[in-house]
C-alpha cells in the first residue's frame, strides 16, 4: 500500500483527551476526501492475526473495582440506547427516552461521587419514531439517532433512501445511521459505493452520518476494511458494524479491523472518525472489551461518545447491576433497576 501522507497520531492528541466535562458529541466532522483506491485496494488483513489480537486484548488488560466502575459509567455515556422493532410505539419510545435521561439510579450515581446526572449518548429509533423521541428528550440535550435508507437491508431505490434520510432529519434526528449496499462491496464497485454514501451525507445535512457496514454479511475482513475506508472517504462520521439484524453482529476481530481502518484514515487525512459496534454487546464485560480495544488501538479520545458509541438495548441493564454490586458489595438483580 503506498502512503501519500502520514500524519502522526499525536497531531490530534489533546483534541478530546482529558476534556472531561461532558464532551460535545461530534466535536469535529469528517468532511471526506475524494475516492482513492490506492488507500485500500491492496489492503491486507490476516484473519488469524486479527483473531489472535482480538483474543488477547482482554486478557492483556484487566479492570477491577473503582476502575471497572468508572469505565462502566463511561460506557453508559457512549450507549446509543436502541429500539428497532416492528412493534415499537411512541409509548415504548417514550419509556426508552426516560431511561436514556436517567440510565443509572441516582442513589448509585451519588454513591460513586457524581453530583451531576449521567446520560446515554443518543436514542436510536426508526424514522417514524423520531418525532416522539425528540419530544420525550426535549431539554436533555440527548440527540435522536434514526436508522434510515431502507434499514436493515438497504435495498430500496436510492431516491427513496435519500428521501428517508431527509424525512428523519426533518423529524429532528441529529444522527442518521445508514446501511451500505453490500452488493457494491462484493462487486468492488467502489465508485458506486462512494457516490451513494456521499449523496447520503449530503441528504443528512447537519445530522451526523453513521455508516453501517453489515459486517456479518460482508464476511471477509478485507471487505470490511475496504468498505470502512470508502465510507470514511465519502464522509461518514462514524463507521458502525451491524444493523443488529444480521446473523453475526459486532465481533472483536471485525471491530479491530474497522478501528485500524479508522487509524489509517486518520494518519492519511488527519480526520478522526468514530466507531460504533452494534448488536451482540449485552454484558458489561463486552463493553469493557470494546473500550479496551478503543484505548489500545486508537487511544483515549475514542472512549468518549464523540468518537465511540455502543449500539445496544440490553447492555445497560447489566451495567447497572455491576455498578450496584460495586457500590453495595452484593450481587444485584435486574428488577432493582428501572426498565427502559
Amino acid at each position, binding site marked *: 500500500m503506498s*502512503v501519500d501522507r502520514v500524519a502522526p497520531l499525536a497531531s490530534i492528541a489533546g483534541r478530546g483527551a482529558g476534556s472531561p466535562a461532558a464532551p460535545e458529541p461530534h466535536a469535529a466532522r469528517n468532511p471526506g476526501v475524494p475516492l482513492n483506491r490506492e488507500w485500500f485496494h491492496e489492503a491486507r*488483513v*490476516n484473519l488469524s*492475526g486479527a483473531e489472535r489480537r482480538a483474543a488477547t486484548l482482554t486478557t492483556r488488560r484487566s479492570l477491577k473495582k*473503582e476502575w471497572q466502575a468508572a*469505565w462502566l459509567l*463511561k460506557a453508559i455515556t457512549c450507549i446509543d440506547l436502541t429500539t428497532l422493532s416492528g412493534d415499537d410505539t411512541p409509548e415504548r419510545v417514550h419509556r426508552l427516552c426516560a431511561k436514556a435521561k436517567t440510565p443509572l439510579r441516582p442513589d448509585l450515581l451519588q454513591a*460513586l461521587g457524581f453530583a451531576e446526572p449521567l446520560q446515554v449518548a443518543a436514542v436510536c429509533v426508526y424514522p417514524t419514531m423520531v418525532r416522539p423521541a425528540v419530544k420525550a428528550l426535549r431539554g436533555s440535550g440527548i440527540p435522536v439517532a434514526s436508522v434510515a435508507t431502507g434499514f436493515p437491508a438497504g435495498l430500496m431505490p436510492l431516491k427513496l433512501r435519500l428521501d428517508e434520510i431527509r424525512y428523519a432529519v426533518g423529524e429532528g434526528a441529529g444522527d442518521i445511521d445508514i446501511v451500505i449496499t453490500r452488493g457494491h462491496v462484493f462487486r468492488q464497485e467502489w465508485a458506486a459505493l462512494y457516490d451513494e454514501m456521499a449523496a447520503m451525507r449530503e441528504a443528512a445535512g447537519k445530522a451526523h452520518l453513521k455508516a453501517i457496514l453489515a459486517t456479518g454479511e460482508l464476511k471477509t475482513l478485507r471487505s470490511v476494511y475496504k468498505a470502512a475506508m470508502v465510507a470514511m472517504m465519502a464522509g461518514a462520521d462514524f463507521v458502525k458494524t451491524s444493523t443488529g439484524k444480521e446473523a453475526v453482529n459486532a465481533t472483536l476481530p471485525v471491530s479491530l479491523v474497522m478501528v485500524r481502518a479508522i487509524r489509517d484514515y486518520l494518519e492519511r487525512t488527519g480526520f478522526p472518525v468514530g466507531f460504533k459496534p452494534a448488536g451482540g454487546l449485552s454484558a458489561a464485560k463486552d463493553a469493557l472489551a470494546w473500550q479496551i480495544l478503543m484505548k489500545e488501538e486508537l487511544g483515549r479520545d475514542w472512549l468518549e461518545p464523540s468518537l465511540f458509541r455502543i449500539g445496544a438495548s440490553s447492555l445497560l441493564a447489566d451495567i447497572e447491576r455491576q455498578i450496584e454490586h460495586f457500590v453495595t458489595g452484593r450481587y444485584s438483580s435486574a428488577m432493582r433497576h428501572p426498565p427502559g
Partner: protein
Amino acid sequence: MTAVKEIFQTMEYGPAPEADAAVRDWLAAHEAGFGHFIGGRFLAPQEGGAFETLSPVNGAALARVAQGSAADIDAAVAAAKKALAKWAGLSGHVRARYLYAVARLIQKRARFFAVLESLDNGKPIRESRDIDLPLVARHFTHHAGWAELMESEFAGYGPLGVCGQIIPWNFPFMMLAWKLAPALAAGNTVVLKPAEQTPLTALAFAELLGEAGLPSGVVNIVTGDGQTGAALVAHEDVAKVAFTGSTDVGRKIRAALAGTGKKLSLELGGKSPFIVFDDADLDAAVEGLVDSIFFNQGEVCCAGSRLLVQESVAERLHDKLRRRMAKLRLGEPLDKSTDIGPLVDAAQLSRVRALVEAGCREGAACWQPDATVPKAGFYFPPTLLTEVAPASIVAQEEIFGPVLASMSFRTPDEAVMLANHSRYGLAASLWTENVNLALHVAARLRAGTVWVNAANLFDAAAGFGGVKESGFGREGGREGMWEYLRPLSAPGRKKPARLPEPDFSVAPAFRAPADKNGLPRLDRTAKLYIGGRQARPDGGHVYSVRSPGGIEVGQAPLGGRKDIRNAVEAAHKAAGWTAMSGHQRAQVLYYLAENLEARGEGFAEGLREMCGAPRKEAEAEVAAAIRRIFLYAAYADKYDGRVHSTLARHVTLAMPEPHGVMGILCPSQAPLLAFVSLVTPAIAMGNRVVAAPSALWPLAATDFYQLLDTSDVPGGVVNIVTGDPAELGATIGGHEDIAAAWHFSGPRGLADFERAAAGNLKPVWACDGRLLDWAGPAGEGEAFLRHATQVKNIWIPYGE
C-alpha cells in the same frame, strides 16, 4: 483510593493484582528451605549447603534451595536407576495413566503454579496463566498419549535408561514438561536440574508427583547451579543428557560427552529472523513482534530478535511498531495488565544493557517509548534498534531481552540470505499474504521452526528444536520421542571381525605384486574423487592397500586436511542436488544400482582380492549393495513428512529436510556395502556428502566413483577422500561448514571427533560400525533416513 470520578476523567487502567496468598503461604511453610527430591522424598543436601532464589521484582529472597553436589547427583541417579526396571517394565497404558493424572493435576492446580512461576521468574501472570501453564498440561496430556501408543507406534524401541535433564530459567515449568513428558512416556527415569534462578515450580511439581502417585525415583529433582549440572552430565550411569540453555554451555556439554556414547539433545540459543514482506498485514506483523520479542521480556530462545523488513514498508512498519510499543505496560508481574515484567536477575539486566549500549556505539539508532519503568526490580524497557548493520553485535548476539534489531531488505532472495546469515537456526517468522512467497521462503529458511504469519506458536504435537548452533534434536511430537528411545535389541550386531589395522606409511612397499596370467600386473591408480573429478591428494602421498594375506593390491591416496576442505567446498557447490525432487534423485540412484550390477563381477573380484573373501561372500556383498541402493532409491520419494495435529485451523507441516553437507566416516569392513549403506541414504534425502571410505580397503570406494560418473550423479554430491579416519575425522569433526556427521569408523578418534564437533555443534551419529552386520537389517532402514534429515515444522494458520 482513587475516586471513581477521577478515573472517569483519566480513563487509566488501575491495578489488577492476581492473588498470591496461597503461594506465599506455601513458601512460608517451606521457610526452612527445600531439599532435593530424590527417590520420592525431599532430602537435605549431603554437602554444598543452600542458596536463595530471589524475586526479580525487588531482589528479595523468595526461598532457600539446596545446592546440589556430586554426592546429591549420585544419590539421585542411583534412585532413578533403581526405579528404572519397574517403570520401563510397565505397559504403555499404565504409564499413560500416570502421565494423564499429572496433566489433570496441573490443570487443576494451574493458578497456583502460574502465580509461583511469575513470582520466581518475573514473567507477567497473563503469560504464565494463559501460555505456560496450558502448554505444560498439554505436553503431559499429549505424551500420556505417546505412552499409550508406545508399543504400536514405536515397536522394537524402548527407553534409554536414566536421563539427565537440565533446564533454563526463562520457561521453568514449561521446559520441565518438555523434558519430563517424553522421557517418562518412553519409559525412562529422570534426574532433572532446574535453573538456579527459578527452581520453585519444579519443587512444587515434585509435591504434585506425590499426589499423582508416581512411583518413587522415576523423577528426581536436584537443585543447584552449573556445577550441579556438570556433575549430572558427567555421571556414568546417565544414558542421555537433554539440555536447554545457552550455546556456550551446550558446547561444553557436547565436549564433555565426547566419546562417551551417551545420547544428547541440545536446544540452545537463537537470533531468529522475523521477516516482513511488503504484502504483509503490517498491523498483524506488529502484533507478531509483540508476541515474539516482547513476550516473556524477550527472554525467549526463539524470539524474533532480528527484524528483516522489506524496504518499501520499513518506515511504515517502524511507525506502527513504535506506536504499539508505547502501549506496552511494564510492571508488577502479578498485575493482570502487565505486558512486560522484570528480567530474571541483575546479571541479565546488565548484560542486556551492555549489549544495547554496544549496539548504539556501533551506530544503531535506539528508540524506547516513554514507558514508566519501575524504579526497583530488573526492568528493561522495550527497545527498537534501527539502522543496524548485519555485522553489529546486536544483529549477531542473542540478547535475551526485549530488544529488537531491525534491518531492511530489497528482494525475497536477500531476505533469505540475511535470515540465514547467522550461526543460529532455531526459528523464523515470516509475514506475507502471498502463499507462493510464504512457502518458498519457509522452505529456504534454515531453522527448526518456521511460523508463517505468526510467531511463537507452540504445541506438544509439533517438534521444536534447532539447526546449526541452535542445537540438535527435537522436543515434542513424534520426532521428539525418538530422542528418548533406542532399538530394543540389536539383532544385527556381531562380534567385530578381527581386522588388521591399516598401515598408512607412505614409503615404497618392498613387496612385489602378484603376476596375473603370467603378465606383470597392470598398475591402477586410485585417486580422490572431489567435485566429480579425480584428484591427487594434496599431500602427495599414497599408502599401500593389502589383502589379509599381506599382498599389496594397490595404493590409495593418503588424503588430508586440504582434501577435506576441497571436498566440502565441492559439496557446497552441488546444491542443485538438494533442490531436486525425490523422484529425480531416485532415478539417479536406480541408475547407479543398474551400473553397479553391470559391473558387479569386477567389484566382486576386487573385493575377493582385496579382502581375501571367498567368491560367494564377495558376490553377496555386491548383491547386497545393489539391493541397498534400490532401497534408498525407493525411499527417496517416500520418506516424507507429516501434518501435525496442533491448533485448529493451522496446518503444521513437519518436513524432513536434509542437513546439507554431511561428513561420513565408514568402517573398515564391508568396504563396498558399508560405504553404500551410509552414502546412499544420505544422498537419497538430498544431502551432499564427504565420505571417508574403509581405511583398510578403500579401493572398492575408489572403484565406485567411476559408477558415480557414469550414473549421472552430479559432481560434488559424493566426494570420496581416502586416508586415516583419525586425521580425516579431526578435520571433518571440526569443519564449520559441515552440517552433520556420521562416525562409523569405530571408537578410535571418536572422542576427539565429537569434541571437535562441538565447534559448530553439528549433530553426530556415532556408531561402532565394526559391530554392525551390514548385510542384515541393522545395516539399513529408517534410522538412517532419520539421521540424514532434521524435521522442520512450518506453521501455517489459515482463514479468510
